[in-house]
């Protein structure tokens, strides 16, 4: 008669996935051991645990729109719907979001970007942007004759993956480090860069080093083209790279190896030196005056029109 009810197994928090907030784990444990009894008490305890999760929660940079979209989807789910149905619906909505805002958007961006690549172009790009990679591969497939210069930087060396991919496709590539960008920029006709997020004041938030490449290009009057999906647009305004950023693992800087085997350099004793700190910043801000145009899935826009796109295409869901 009671077979449809779940039997509460003894909870073992060690087996819980690591992403679960400890407050929730504690709550689960308390519930399973009946330390908290009574409907009201259990409800209050659950809500208090959620409060702790909310307080500790931090939206990763650039994913604000995606998370907001998800929260809105959750909030519009019909109360009558069963949990299973709701979960299925939410997963479907997430899939749709990925398809519309990322996969299809990338294809549209590539279509627009192809208009700006002609025979004889020397294109410079920095690190590895998935959209720029797709664009260059598609341009090559269409038979456009162009060369690529890939600028890379430590410690992530993401440009290597892009280099691998483009060379395998048969594109003529040159690979250089960031310190050589001034020299490499001499023969460049266009610069294509990717984005992590785009601020409302038209500033680009992208992999650290992007700002240097954009400034160098502007100095030589070379057009700087950013390929960016609209989901990365945010209504935040940021004036410099310090106020909001992310730090990577400082030990990545210590490793000076160029192969997979780590090779610690002179900085390996940095923890023992009280006056020495290692800073491994992950992102930087490129002011709008260094950017010529932004290619999005809704068209090519000047970077000052980012708030217009936010206003027209993504009205605040109230």
């Amino acid at each position, binding site marked *: 008669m009671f077979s449809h009810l779940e039997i509460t197994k003894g909870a073992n928090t060690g087996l819980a996935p690591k992403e679960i907030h400890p407050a929730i784990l504690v709550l689960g444990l308390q519930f399973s051991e009946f330390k908290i009894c009574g409907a009201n008490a259990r409800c209050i305890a659950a809500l208090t645990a959620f409060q702790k999760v909310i307080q500790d929660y931090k939206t990763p940079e650039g994913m604000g729109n995606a998370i907001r979209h998800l929260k809105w989807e959750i909030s519009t789910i019909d109360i009558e719907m069963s949990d299973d149905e709701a979960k299925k619906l939410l997963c479907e909505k997430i899939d749709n979001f990925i398809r519309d805002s990322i996969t299809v958007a990338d294809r549209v961006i590539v279509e627009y970007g192809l208009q700006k690549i002609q025979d004889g172009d020397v294109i410079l790009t920095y690190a590895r942007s998935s959209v720029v990679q797709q664009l260059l591969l598609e341009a090559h497939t269409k038979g456009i004759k162009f060369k690529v210069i890939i600028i890379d930087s430590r410690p992530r060396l993401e440009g290597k993956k892009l280099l691998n991919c483009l060379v395998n496709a048969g594109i003529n590539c040159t690979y250089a480090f960031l310190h050589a960008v001034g020299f490499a920029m001499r023969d460049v006709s266009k610069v294509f860069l990717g984005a992590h997020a785009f601020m409302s004041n038209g500033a680009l938030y992208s992999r650290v080093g992007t700002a240097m490449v954009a400034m160098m290009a502007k100095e030589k009057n070379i057009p700087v083209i950013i390929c960016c999906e609209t989901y990365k647009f945010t209504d935040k305004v940021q004036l410099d790279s310090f106020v909001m950023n992310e730090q990577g693992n400082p030990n990545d800087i210590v490793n000076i190896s160029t192969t997979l085997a780590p090779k610690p350099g002179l900085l390996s004793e940095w923890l023992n030196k009280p006056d020495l700190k290692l800073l491994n910043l992950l992102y930087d801000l490129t002011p709008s005056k260094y950017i010529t*145009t932004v290619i999005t899935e809704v068209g090519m826009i000047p970077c*000052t029109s980012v708030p217009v796109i936010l206003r027209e295409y993504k009205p605040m869901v109230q």
Partner: protein
Amino acid sequence: MESLKDASQKLKSSVKNSISLSAGADLFLRFVTRTSHDVTNFEACKEHLMNSGKVLVEKAAAVREKIGDLGVQFIKDDATILIHSYSRVVMLLLQRAAACKKRFKVYVTESRPSCLGIRATKLLCKAGIPATVIYDTAVGYIIDKVDAVFVGAEGVVENGGLINAIGTYQLAVVAKAANKPFYAVIESYKFVRLFPLNQYDLPTHTPDLLTFPDLEHHTDLSEDEIIGNYEAINPSVDYTPPDYITLLCTDLGVLTPSGVSDELIKLYL
């Protein structure tokens, strides 16, 4: 729809500098697409479009009057204005300012090879406005005596930049270097869906522009023949980036270059 698109393409390719033409055609095509969604009956749709077409043509003249009214505030009494080539909107604006009893002088660039500046000067003098022609090359010489620069345009591109008669970009650079305001006066139907990255990204730029002659035969040519040759390979329009433009006076209001993009996005949404 297809036949309309073909017709529009034919029109664009028949005229040499089809930028303003393509802007108007694109806008009308856009209007057609939008209307076809609203109206279900084909006959009613057709009639609606024909009427709108007529209204557009009539409005074009009225639009210039509206711009004239808006732009007059930028011409101060006792000012010296510099204009480039001949533009109907700029002419109307200056005539309107004179009618408002403002006293001002106008320098007009000769605007070779079309020499349309001469026609402009004639019209201005007829309207009682003191005007004189200056060489295109004398712009740098005269800029410190000037209070403001006014130009028309063939088209305004998506970032707020201008496409206009050759020499406009030069004029804009000199004006910026001398800290003089550079105003563009233009009708809103000339907003075009182009985003040039630089001069060489314009649709009017062809590979045979500004090429070098075959040296073997060049020494045998007469002066007239040389002139004929280089006139054929020189560009007739150029692109002025938005950084050099102070404000644009349009019938949608006085806009900054970034405001143009705002209007275009709303229009083509």
